């Protein structure tokens, strides 16, 4: 029910519903109520003008025009639906033909559809109408077949999209027959867009049908539809324009009803996930009004970031444990929180994260998907987009407080570099690689065109791209995956950054290329003294490069330890994580260690986030969030540290 309510949320949707409802009700009731009146011949009142008795006047036999228009709704609608059904079914069969018939025949059908689409629909309709002869049934058939090519092309594209998915391959391997695959797997998955287009298509078919009847090729007397009525009224159009306008108006309204309905369904299907956010953004706007400022955090050290003006109340559940204030650190983060609006209120995927990265240090951040590790990195780099909100007690980078509300674009642009997982999406495919690097040198480095390009080539060489001068003139698609990632790192080191944030930089790469990229990051760090913050789901990747590892779970850092101590970690989660990954020395005769259960969603937390999966958990763990305890460079948030270490 809520879905229907959501669908009807816009004025457009309500208009569509009212119009469609009106047309449907008329189609059912009009012949019953006004059927007799529409047939009553009155030879004394032929071609009468509009009057109180006949609102739209009368026709050549003195029959009431308005009643005839209303009664004609049923026939018009039925013929429209009939033609649409023929078009959709024929279109679907033609569109699915390449799948059903195999490659050679399928290709022939594809060509046929391509040619048919090139003809104007009305021309095809007239062509078919002439072949099939005049009459309502043949007109419906003609219009249905004329609209089939468009539906066929649509279906073909939709079917091809579904066919490329693995579940079709799985069904084929499982021995499921073609027709069964078509009706059980393909049809349900293309049903929604097909229904939308069929609804909108019905609107234009209605119009075309009126056209055919108007030309005398459609409905034949004594039957009548709106097109036929328009034709009959044409003789008096100069005398009583209203007479021919009435059926015309009916066509417009009904056509509009179909088109708007199609649009509404498309709208509600297309952005079904955005509707919640739109509601939230309204709420967020309301919250940012001056009067509600007090709703913000009250902690004295709290500072606003992210350019957003306000954020919801989040308990400052972080405990600062580092003895120093992070003054010596290159990056110092205190109490970082990220919140997002959802259907059921605000959730915090990052709930109070504090850590330091020293100049030149390599720090790893590991965690499962959903642990909040990527959001933490994005929040530090000020890249969380609306409607996400970032709040922190402090985020200090290279001596500047990033949370003071001013723009730090220049500092972030020059001193902070980010490397993402998929270099194909982070490089602009339409620009040469060298030019993309040079742009940064010109924008932030103050270099002129020539110097920037020279620097770009130099940087490509620094990231071990062979023939850098030639490669700089190439486009991203001419690079291999590993090469693109190296170019991305080259982009990062264009301006001598002080910190490189690499978010899953090797996940999309093969093992040997992964080793090269990790080695490259390590050597850049050694050579230029750049700090490296490596984010990965893979403990072994982090262990290969980093001095120190942060382990994240359920939006918090649960352990911060020297990488060398990973095998003797204090937190049960860290140890489970390390044990769960098979290495080249794992005992192959024993079962792998596993972590039962699943990671928590951001909304379902009380006490220690790991408690439901932890073998050591007790009532305290389930009730209270563990405080962070530290021993030297080792921090851990667990109530059972003593037992765990033993």
């Amino acid at each position, binding site marked *: 029910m809520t879905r229907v309510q959501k669908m009807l949320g816009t004025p457009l949707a309500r208009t569509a519903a009212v119009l469609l409802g009106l047309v449907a009700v008329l189609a059912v009731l009009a012949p019953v109520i006004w059927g007799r009146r529409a047939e009553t011949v009155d030879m004394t009142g032929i071609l009468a003008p509009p009057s109180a008795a006949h609102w739209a006047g009368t026709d050549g036999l003195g029959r009431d025009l308005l009643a005839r228009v209303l009664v004609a709704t049923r026939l018009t609608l039925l013929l429209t639906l009939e033609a649409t059904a023929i078009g959709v079914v024929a279109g679907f069969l033609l569109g699915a033909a390449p799948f059903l018939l195999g490659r050679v025949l399928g290709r022939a059908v594809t060509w046929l559809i391509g040619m048919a689409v090139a003809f104007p629909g009305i021309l095809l309709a007239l062509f078919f109408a002439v072949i099939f002869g005049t009459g309502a049934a043949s007109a419906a058939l003609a219009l249905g077949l004329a609209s089939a090519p468009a539906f066929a092309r649509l279906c073909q594209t939709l079917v091809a999209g579904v066919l490329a998915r*693995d579940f079709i391959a799985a069904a084929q*391997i499982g*021995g499921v*027959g073609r027709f069964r695959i078509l009706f059980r797997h393909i049809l349900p998955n293309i049903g929604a867009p097909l229904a939308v287009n069929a609804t909108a298509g019905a609107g234009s078919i209605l119009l075309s049908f009126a056209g055919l009847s108007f030309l005398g090729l459609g409905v034949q007397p004594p039957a009548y539809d709106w097109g036929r009525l328009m034709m009959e009224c044409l003789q008096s159009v100069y005398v009583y324009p209203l007479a021919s306008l009435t059926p015309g108006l009916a066509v417009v309204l009904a056509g509009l009803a179909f088109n708007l309905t199609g649009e509404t369904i498309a709208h509600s299907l297309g952005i079904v996930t955005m509707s919640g956010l739109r509601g939230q953004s309204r709420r967020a706007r309301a919250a940012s009004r001056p009067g509600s400022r007090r709703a913000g955090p009250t902690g004295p050290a709290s500072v606003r970031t992210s350019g957003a003006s306000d954020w919801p109340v989040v308990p400052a559940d972080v405990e600062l444990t580092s003895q120093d204030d992070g003054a010596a650190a290159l990056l110092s983060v205190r109490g970082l929180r990220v919140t997002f609006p959802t259907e059921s209120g605000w959730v915090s995927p990052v709930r109070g994260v504090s850590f330091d990265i020293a100049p030149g240090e390599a720090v790893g951040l590991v965690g499962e998907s959903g642990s909040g590790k990527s959001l933490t990195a994005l929040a530090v780099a000020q890249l969380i987009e609306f409607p996400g909100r970032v709040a922190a007690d402090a985020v200090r980078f290279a001596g500047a407080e990033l949370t003071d509300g001013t723009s730090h674009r220049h500092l972030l642009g020059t001193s902070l570099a980010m490397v993402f997982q998929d270099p194909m999406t982070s490089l602009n495919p339409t620009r040469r690689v060298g030019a993309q690097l040079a742009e940064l040198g010109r924008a932030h480095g103050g270099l002129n065109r020539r110097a920037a390009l020279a620097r770009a080539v130099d940087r490509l060489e620094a990231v071990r791209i062979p023939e850098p001068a030639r490669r700089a003139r190439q486009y991203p698609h001419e690079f291999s995956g590993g090469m693109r990632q190296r170019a991305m790192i080259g982009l990062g080191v264009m301006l001598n950054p002080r910190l490189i944030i690499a978010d899953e930089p090797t996940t999309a790469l093969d*093992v040997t290329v992964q080793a090269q990229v990790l080695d490259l990051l390590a050597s850049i760090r050694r050579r230029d003294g750049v700090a490296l913050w490596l984010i990965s789901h893979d403990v*072994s990747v982090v262990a*290969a490069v980093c001095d120190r590892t942060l382990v994240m779970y359920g939006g918090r850092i649960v352990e911060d330890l020297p990488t060398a101590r990973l095998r003797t970690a204090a937190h049960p989660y860290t140890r489970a994580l390390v044990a769960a990954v*098979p290495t*080249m020395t794992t005992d192959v005769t024993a079962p792998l260690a596993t972590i039962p259960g699943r990671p928590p969603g951001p909304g379902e937390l009380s006490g220690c986030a790991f408690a439901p999966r932890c073998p050591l958990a007790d009532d305290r763990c389930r009730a209270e969030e563990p405080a962070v305890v530290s021993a030297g460079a080792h921090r851990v948030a667990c109530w059972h540290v003593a037992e765990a270490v033993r």
Partner: protein
Amino acid sequence: MSELKFSHVTVHFGTGRRRITAVDDVSLVVPRGSILGLVGESGSGKSTLARAAVGLAPVHAGSITLDGDPVPTRGSYRPLQMVFQDPTASLDPRLTIGAAIAEVAPRGLTRAGRAAEVARLLELVHLEAGQAAAFPGQLSGGQRQRVALARALAGTPKVIIADEITSSLDVSIQGAILNLVRDLVAEIGLTLLFISHNLAVVRYMASRVAVMQGGHLVEEGPTALVMANPAHPYTRQLLAAVPGADKPKGTP
């Protein structure tokens, strides 16, 4: 138990000058009742070899046989089943998991028989029989991969091909799936072709390992032997690339 045998298999895509040979004259035997690991980088042809075996890629030369007979790629009984990398993509979002499994189950079962078979398979992969009515979207990634496994088993296969089945799963879930697959192979007496780019995983799973590079099979042998004593330079390169593989880490 059955033996899957690839003899001089060649697969290419495209025609004329743009022809690419994805698998080039590969001969390989997956011994009955055992797990053979197939490793290589993307583009090495390992997935194409698997797809050729189940009829998803054309075989231009050579043959793929099961106990000496060609692998049937038509008809309703398919003794060779495959589990895909991403369970989100390999399960129809609009079909309940029970229906997805039942679809592959042997024909000719009664309605009750099919429901019982679905329940048995779900329990086999450590899911609850009551979850048969759930849609894939209601399950976690690990649970979905279990369903994909159950569906492959529903076809009463003799050989299963597992193509990177844990690559899209979190490490905490990966272990449970790997344990499950190993148990199933031992319990049911399956023959398994296990494709992965992760050498540590292959080392744990497989008794024999085959290495592919650029469409060629470059090395094949008992896992322990190949890992300890790689003969081909490419295998050595792969082993050296495993993160943390006994080499000093990048300290300044």
